């Protein structure tokens, strides 16, 4: 049995369709990340699962029960919000126990659950404090605790780390992953941050315009993006793209015919196509010589980032970015030879932009 199942979900506000015919199965104990830029419908989908938005059509099942029209509190979910959403007038303890009191749970049981959750999250010393007296990281721990005490099967996270500074975000990300390993609950996590998505997810659903573009494990999403949008969205800096004709197993790039023999086509294809190659898969200098494709480019700009360096140049009239090691003496104006292997590239249909 799947933990969460979504069938043909539609949601529209007036004439605007936010979600259309969406299907999604989430396995028991899975960490699923909904990833996309703002307005793609990821938070909307999460709110539908939580029952905070009424769907227009379709069904939602949680733990095998049809909860499409159930109240949020009846669905067996816990939710963590971007702005923490702690009740400002209640202590941490009050925040943790509010939901349980609403269930009319007996006091002993509430106490037991609160102390267990606060032990897991290491917030025992904060129980008597009000949210205003907590740091951002502590607040988010309390917010997670509020979901934890409910002892539910499914946790929903709505960009929980976005309000934290970079360092804290990294720390909490690791904690969240450890927490998931410890609890084994199903977690659905909405974010626009691809690093969070890649590091946390068992599977990522990349969304755009209310439609899931690709659903897969982080590695597949990264190396075999299903269409040009996903290829472009994942990875920073993003993938380089070139247009060129594909004919008889070869592609014309930079006035050179490159054999596509090593490319894993879904089906044979002839015609115009996009070729994409990630900056980190480009080789440069002497390494480039025995690649499937190589060329010489002029360096336009060098961006040192510490661990590595990003080099901007131009290839076939398009900007072309590639990574080299951090300590490099490449300068603007240098001529440098680059190359890449065909099995590292992604090819897309020029019209449908679907992976070939």
């Amino acid at each position, binding site marked *: 049995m799947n933990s969460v199942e979504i069938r043909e979900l539609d949601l529209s506000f007036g004439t605007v369709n936010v979600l259309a015919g969406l299907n999604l199965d989430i396995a028991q104990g899975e960490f699923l990340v909904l990833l996309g830029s703002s307005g793609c419908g990821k938070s909307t989908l999460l709110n539908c699962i939580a029952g905070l938005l009424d769907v227009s059509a379709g069904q939602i099942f949680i733990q095998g029960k049809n909860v499409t029209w159930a109240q949020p*509190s009846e669905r067996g979910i816990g939710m963590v*919000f971007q*702005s923490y959403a*702690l*009740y400002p*007038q209640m202590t941490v303890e009050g925040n943790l126990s509010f*939901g349980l009191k*609403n269930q009319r749970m007996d006091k002993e049981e509430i106490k037991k659950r609160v102390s267990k959750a606060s032990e897991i999250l290491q917030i025992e010393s904060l129980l008597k404090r009000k949210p205003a007296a907590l740091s951002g990281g502590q607040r988010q721990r309390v917010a997670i605790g*509020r979901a934890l005490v409910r002892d539910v099967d499914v946790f929903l996270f709505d960009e929980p780390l976005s309000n934290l500074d970079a360092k804290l975000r990294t720390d909490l990300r690791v904690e969240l992953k450890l927490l998931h390993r410890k609890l084994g609950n199903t977690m659905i996590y909405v974010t626009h941050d691809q690093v969070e998505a890649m590091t946390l997810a068992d599977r990522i659903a990349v969304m755009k315009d209310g439609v899931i573009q690709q659903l897969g494990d982080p590695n597949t999403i990264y190396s075999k993006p299903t269409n040009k949008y996903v290829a472009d969205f994942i990875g920073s800096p993003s993938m380089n793209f070139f247009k060129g004709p594909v004919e008889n197993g070869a592609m014309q790039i930079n006035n050179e015919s490159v054999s596509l023999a090593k490319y894993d086509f879904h089906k044979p294809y002839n015609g115009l196509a996009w070729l994409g190659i990630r900056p980190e898969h480009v080789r440069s200098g002497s390494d480039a010589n025995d690649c499937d494709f190589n060329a010489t480019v002029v360096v336009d700009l060098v961006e040192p980032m510490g661990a590595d360096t990003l080099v901007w140049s131009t290839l076939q009239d398009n900007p072309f970015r590639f990574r080299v090691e951090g300590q490099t003496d490449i300068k603007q104006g240098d001529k440098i030879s680059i190359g890449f292997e065909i099995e590292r590239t992604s090819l897309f249909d020029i019209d449908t932009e679907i992976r070939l």
Partner: protein
Amino acid sequence: MADALTGPSGPPPKRIFSRTNIMLYGTLLVVSIYYLLPLYVMVVTSLKGMPEIRLGNIFAPPLEVTFEPWVKAWSEACTGINCDGLSRGFWNSVKILVPSCALSIAVASVNGYALARWKFKGSELFFSILIVGAFIPYQTMLYPLVIILRELGLMGKLGGLVLVHTVFGMPILTLLFRNYFAGIPEDLFKAARVDGAGFWGIYFRIMLPMSLPIFVVALILQVTGIWNDFLFGVIYTKPATYPMTVQLNNIVNSVQGIKEYNVNMAATLLTGGVPLILYFISGKLFVRGIAAGAVKG
């Protein structure tokens, strides 16, 4: 020489007694006199005896301070055949004020909360009508309300006036509360729903404890408005239940008897005293109340 080179360039900063400042503060002081004068005149007049008023100058401080006009205004001044002073109107106004404030604020806060967070089909339409209704002259609704109150058996009774104040206070108060509740982060509301709280649970347990300031603002708005009301008081009550403003006007503008200006001014100050004290105590909140009510309206 080195000092001269590194010293500041340009003219030195303006002093407090620059010409602009003298003009600025001069204007403010003159304007302040215009605003303060009536209050001053009322106070000094109310402390003088009638002979002194007839002979003297209204701006002169009293030669002999007497509180007799205040006592007379409170307990002896006549309206028609009743000679029990403004105290009757004062207590009537209190009896009108307390339930009117409580009812109008309770109704409008729940209503504003529903409009901010629990929209339903048509709720926005009703809200629009409500706001437009705030601009409809009361005169077109006065008589229909007479009929409604008569049908409810509330015409001429305190309960009727309470209802009228609740109805006419609703647009501005609802707007005030709706905007305030809409400003509370939606996530908080969602979190409470996930925690199993419903419409009333969220209102009483989450929203109310967070909203004390806006309730104070609403209270100031209502106390001032209802205390100062004349129109509804004169139409929907009987002489025995007249609020203080109506009784005050009847005392001062009565054509019978000799005019006792000192008593009149004492009565006027007594009536104006309640909102005035509230104003001086609440300060910033009063300003916030009228600014919030006005700018958004």
